[in-house]
Structures are given as C-alpha cells and as structure tokens.
C-alpha cells in the first residue's frame, strides 16, 4: 500500500506539511497594515475582474477523476476516525493560534493577510478533496471530514475561515462534477504551490432569494453561452481568478458555469457587509459575458445543482457550529470571572441557564450537520437532513451569537471582545448560499 493510500500515511502527510510551516514556530504574521485592498472597505468601488493566470492542462485525462464513495459503516458512531481527529486537531490549532489572532485586524481591513491564506493552503486542506491522479492527497470522498475542517477553522474566525475555504469550493466542485477536460485544465493550479483565489457564486442581491429561481441568465450564443446578471457577497471577489457561477440556463433550469476572471464583461464591485469582512466580499457583475461551450458544468443536470446548493448549506452549518463553539468557549470563563452583587454572575440561573442552552443547541447543530454530511458522502438522499440542519443552524446559531453579546453586556458590544464580531458573522449563516462546499 502506498503512503498516500494509507489512512495513517495521509494524516502524517498533512501533519508533516503543517510541521514545516513557520506558523508552528509561533512567528507572528505580518499584519495587513499595507492595505492593498483598502477599497474593499468601501461600498461600490468597481473594477474589472482580476487578471487570471493561464489555466492550462499539464496532463490530459481520458476520463474525469473522482474520489470513491466512503463505505457505509454498520453502526451508529459519533467518534471521528483517528485521521479525522488528527486533522481536526491540526486545523483547530491553526485556527485558534493564527486565525483568532489576526481576526480583528482582518475584519477592519476587510482583507485576509496573504501570508495567512498561504499558510492555510500549505495545510493541504484543498488537497484532501482532490484525487491523487490529479496531484491531490484525497483517497475518499468525505463530506464529514470537510465539515470537521470547516468547524475547526470557524472556531478561529468565520470570516477568515471563509477566505481560506473559498478556493476549495471551486476545486471540490470540479472534482465532483467537472469533466475530464475541465479537470485537466483547472485542477492542476489548485494542487500547486500558489493556489488561486476562487469562488463559488450563487447568491443574488434580492429579498427572499431562492437558489432554485435565479435571475442571472445564461443563453446559448456564439457557440457557447452568454451570462448576464449579478452575484452577491462573493468572497475574495476582487482577487479571484476563477469563479463557478450559478445561472438559469434558458430552457433548462439552474446550472453551474466556470468563469475565468479576465473574461470580457466580468466586473467586480466591492460589497462590504455586516460580517464576513475578512473574506473581502464583493459583487460579481456579469455584463454580456461570453463563455465557451466547455464552461458548462455537468450538462446542467438538475440533481448536480441541487447537491451543490445543499453541500454549500452544510458548509455554512459547519461554519456556524464552529463559531457557536467559539462563543461558548469564550463566555464560560467570562461569566465565571465577572462579579456582580457579590458573586460570579454564573451563580445566577438567568445567566447559567443561558449558557446551558447555548451548549444544548450547539450540540444539536453539530449532530444535525454531521448526519446530513454523513448521508451526503455515502450517496444517500440528504435534502431533508440538510434543510433541517440549516434551519437549526440559522436560528440557533444566530441566537447563540446574540447570547454571546448579551452575556458580556456592554463589554460584548465593544470591539475589545470578539463576541460582537461573531454576532455579525453568525447572521450570515442563515442567508448565505454557495461559497463553501463540504
């Protein structure tokens, strides 16, 4: 058995990458003081799409490479496998040590430090989802592992977690649904040294957005397709070199298209929001964008689009769970130390019950997300389980964000503590579509 095929070997490879990073030496990262992206903090600053690299095939695949489905276990089990646990610990260490430390600065700068993004890609998270024949280290399709990773990253900071994970949403989509040509052309860049910024753009700027009913249109033209429309809250939009865009394909329905950022008619408008600011969110404006026929993913198959939407929702569930865990871990010492009326405020039921309910709903969010992800990776129907996880994570995640601020009182409202940021970030989990895939 080759090292890469071996579960232990795989975990060690990830760990080895991590051990070699300067992060582990606890060297500080350069703060994003030089704000090359200072415009990102201002609404409506418009520019053309980033100049993308020439995406070229380094090898020709005869057929698309996919990760094999994970085998279905017989028993109910809540224990992660050894390799999952090791990965989770590694990512959590990175999140708490690095993401948390840089979160406040990245939030106000509306940008993630480049070094931090590089370190996160050095961790090899994106590689896990890419099969070996394409240069990745993935040996099995595991939505659960991806959930654990997203959860662990978000424990550090949700905005930075989104910035880190955005490119792997694109590579995961290509692995799951790309044909041989699309995979050969685009995936080598995602297993290289410098992973391109990339984003999965689904959301549109309108109320009661329904991803099944898109206003971004695609119609046949010039031997390919023409795209027209606006996508909202796209992470790292200004620097992204590659997008996967959801658009309604005329006479067919919602579908996914690969769009290179330098394509004529691709415009980026900064769209800073209440939260997720470290992810440098922007609008992607598609103005008469002409794409080759090869830009369409998986022949606009309806089930692929639905799966994509649901896997992204699970990504948001995992991010909300990780952030809610951060809230719980933060408020426990606070309410134990904060004294009022002569004793710690945690001695009052009004405070203590609030903490208990955070823990109960947090565990609920986690279990629902794990179940849906487990079904997804085994090829079972998972629409219902995803809808339930999303409902719970949207409602309870926000409630936990709210409680986090409330329990700190006035101190929760000021930026000395991270709870106000989590309050802003957690609002996103119930309304976002796309962006992350598990």
């Amino acid at each position, binding site marked *: 058995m080759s090292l890469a095929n071996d579960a232990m070997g795989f975990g060690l490879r990830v760990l080895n990458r991590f051990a070699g990073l300067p992060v582990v030496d606890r060297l500080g990262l350069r703060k994003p003081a030089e704000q090359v992206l200072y415009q990102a903090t201002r609404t409506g600053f418009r520019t053309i799409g980033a100049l993308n690299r020439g995406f070229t095939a380094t090898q020709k695949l005869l057929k698309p490479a996919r990760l094999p489905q994970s085998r279905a276990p017989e028993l109910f089990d809540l224990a992660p496998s050894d390799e999952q646990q090791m990965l989770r610990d590694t990512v959590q260490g990175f999140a708490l040590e690095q993401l948390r430390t840089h979160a406040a600065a990245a939030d106000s700068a509306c940008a993630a430090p480049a070094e931090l993004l590089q370190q996160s890609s050095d961790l090899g998270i994106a590689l896990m989802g890419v099969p070996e024949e394409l240069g990745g280290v993935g040996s099995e399709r595991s939505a659960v592992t991806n959930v654990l990773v997203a959860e662990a990253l978000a424990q550090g900071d949700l905005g930075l977690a989104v910035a880190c994970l955005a490119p792997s949403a694109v590579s995961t989509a290509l692995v799951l649904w790309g044909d041989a040509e699309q995979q050969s052309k685009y995936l080598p860049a995602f297993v290289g040294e410098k992973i391109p910024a990339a984003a999965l753009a689904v959301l549109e700027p309108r109320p009661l957005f329904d991803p099944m009913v898109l206003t971004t249109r695609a119609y046949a033209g010039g031997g390919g397709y023409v795209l027209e429309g606006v996508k909202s809250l796209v992470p790292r939009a200004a620097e992204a070199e590659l997008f996967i865009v959801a658009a309604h394909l005329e006479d067919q329905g919602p579908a996914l298209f690969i769009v290179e950022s330098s394509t004529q008619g691709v415009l980026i408008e900064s769209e800073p929001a209440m939260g997720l600011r470290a992810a440098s969110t922007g609008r992607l404006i598609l103005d008469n964008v002409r794409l080759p026929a090869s830009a369409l993913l998986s022949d606009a198959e309806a089930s692929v689009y639905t799966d994509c939407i649901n896997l992204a929702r699970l990504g948001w569930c995992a991010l909300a769970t990780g952030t809610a865990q951060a809230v719980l871990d933060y408020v426990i010492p606070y309410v134990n130390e904060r004294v009022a009326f002569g004793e710690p405020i945690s001695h009052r039921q009004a405070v203590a019950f609030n903490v208990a309910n955070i823990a109960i709903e947090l565990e*609920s*969010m986690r279990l629902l997300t794990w179940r849906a992800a487990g079904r997804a990776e085994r090829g079972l129907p998972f629409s219902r389980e995803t*809808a339930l996880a999303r*409902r719970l994570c949207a*409602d309870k995640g926000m409630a936990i964000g709210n409680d986090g601020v409330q329990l700190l009182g006035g101190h929760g409202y000021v930026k000395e503590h991270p709870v106000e940021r989590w309050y802003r970030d957690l609002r996103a989990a119930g309304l976002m579509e796309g962006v992350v895939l598990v």
Partner: protein
Amino acid sequence: MINLENPKKFSALVNQAHQVAAEIFRSNSRKYDLAEHSYPKELDMLAALLDGMNSAGGNGGAGAAGVRRDSKDGDSGNRNGSNLSTVLGVMELCWGDVGLLLSMPRQGLGNSAIASVANDEQLERFKGRWAAMAITEPHCGSDSAAIRTSARLDGDDYVLNGEKIFVTSGERAELVVVWATLDKAAGRAAIKSFVVEKNTPGFELVRLEHKLGIRASDTAQFALVNCRVPKANLLGDPKIDVEKGFGGVMQTFDNTRPLVAGMAVGVACACLEETRKILEQAGVKIDYDRPALTQHAAVAEFLKMEADYEAARLLTMQAAWMADNRKPNSLQASMAKAKAGRSCVDIALKCVELCGSIGYAENELLEKWARDAKILDIFEGTQQIQLLIVARRLLGKTSAELR
C-alpha cells in the same frame, strides 16, 4: 467512523416496536384516555410477548430492561448495545402511545432502578416483577434531597414512615421502590432506595390522581405507616458515605433520562407525521430544497419543528450511545432530556394550532398528544433541573454555588 443513521442490526426490533405501537397502542389510545384508572388489559398479552423477547436474548425495547451497565461485556471499539436499542424501541412505542408504554407491566421506572443499582441477589429475587418508583413527596419534587420519608433499622427490618405521591403505576405494580432517608441530618448521602412489596402492612394506597394527560397510566399516592421492609431490600450500599453523596440513587437518572427523552421524541414524531398528513391533504407540501421563507408559512413552522425534533432525537441517541460505550453521560443525558422535553411540548402544541379544530377536537389524537407531552418536560427531572445540571457541569459549579 462518524455515522448517525440507525444501525441496521436494530431494524427488526424497531420494526417490531412500530407494529406493536400501531396495532395495539394506537388502537387503544383514546379508549384509555377516556377511561382513566381502568386497567388496559390488552397490555397483559403484550407484556408476556415482550418478556419472551427479552429472555430470548433480544431486547423488548419497552424501557426498563436494558439500562444496566454490564461490566462483563468485551470491549472492542464502537458499541451499539442495549441502551441504544432500548431508546429506539421506546421512541417507536411512544409514537404509538406514551401513557400505554408507562402502563406496560414489568417495565416500570422501578424496574430501571433495580436494573441499575441492585446487587446480583436482588436482581435475581425481583426478576420478572413489576416495580414502580416513589420519590416525590407532597412538599418536595425536584428537591429530592429534602425528602422526609424515614427508614430506621430495627432488627432485620427497616421501618419506613412517610408519604409518597406521583407514583407511576403505583396501583398496578407489584413492587414499589421507595426513596427514604436513614438520617435526615446526614443529607443526601443518607437517602437510600427500598423495595417495598405491595401487600406489606403499613403500606397504604391513598388515592389515584386525575391528570391532564397520560391518563392510561395510573398515578398513585401512598402512606407508609410503620411499614416494615426486610434489610435485604435496600438497593445498593447501606453505608452512609458522605463522599459519594447522592451518587447511588442519582445514577438511575443517567440511565432513565435518555429513555424519557426517547418518549418525548416518539410523541413529537407522531405529532409531526400526523400534521404533515393533514397539511398535505390541505394542499401544503414541504420542499426541502427551497428556502423556508419562500414557502407557505406553515411549511416554515413545520421545518423549524422538524429540526428541533431531529435535534432531540440525535441528542437522545448520543446519550444512549455513550452509555453503551461506557462513557460518562450525565451531561448528555440531561441535554437530551432538556431538548426533547421542551421540543416535544412546543411541537405538540404548535401542531394542534396548525391543524385548527381538527387538531383540537377529540376525533383525532393530536389534542391528546399535546396533553400527554407536558409530563415529559416534568418527570425524571423538570426542564429547569436539567438546565441546572448542564450549567453546573459546564461552569464547574457545585450545587451550593449554582442553586
């Protein structure tokens, strides 16, 4: 490897429990709701069937048999054992009728207590007998450390004096496990449980309660007046160990709380299933792929309830799974009980509202389930007690600090 689906090896058992619930419990649900205090004789045959299943090495799944932690089990990785199978069985049976489950002969909470803390001799002696549980007294419920029923050693007997209320199956059971204190001054550590035979002189049935729900189940009040119980009927260790405190008797709750959570999950499941059917007949259909807010308001409500139901179900399975794998589960048991108890009540009441007069009238069972549900957020520790337990664990507080 993470997997939150029901294990295949229990599917026959779950299916069996579902059949019993559908054929026997459901068809007698209204009858015994209306005829409070009359004995559901249909259950005798069923209980015999369950006994047969239990002794055949399977698990009856009605609740009381399988909560003992067997130290003789071999340990090889992940286990799905009797705690999980029992809780899954309970969910199915309570989908049928929670009052009738509580009335199942030989499946009382007293049986759980015996199964959890009795020594081998006692296990053998009380085997196959129906045992109820008597903790609550007129002046104390949640504060069970405050009980006044006393037990005084006199020769080879303990002499019990006091009053007990809210004893489920108190009239029908053959045995009652009575909590009493050996020494009121010694606090929690002196509280022990005693198995009392129903025909013991000085053990008197005072009355049966008339209740909001679970009317198929009898709830009795007892007076103990110089009631003599053999020394050998004290469950567990007779020593007053202040270090251990409440440990002995409270241990039962770690095992029974997931079961009560399972009952709540079963009732919630019945409510949601019935409401979904009624809504669909009215043309309201749920689309799980589309956002809740772009669908009918009733769908949005339904999704919220279904998410809470699913959370309660998985938390309950988690608590049982931890017991099967011999991990300490007090925290998870209380989390499951808290979430399941409150969700069950919210869901049942909202389902009645969504279904309007159909939900409220006695033609359907929804109104009954909404009445039955309420007890599940009260007995085996109220919502507030569960939150106290969870909070104390998380915050590292004693019961003196966080009261």
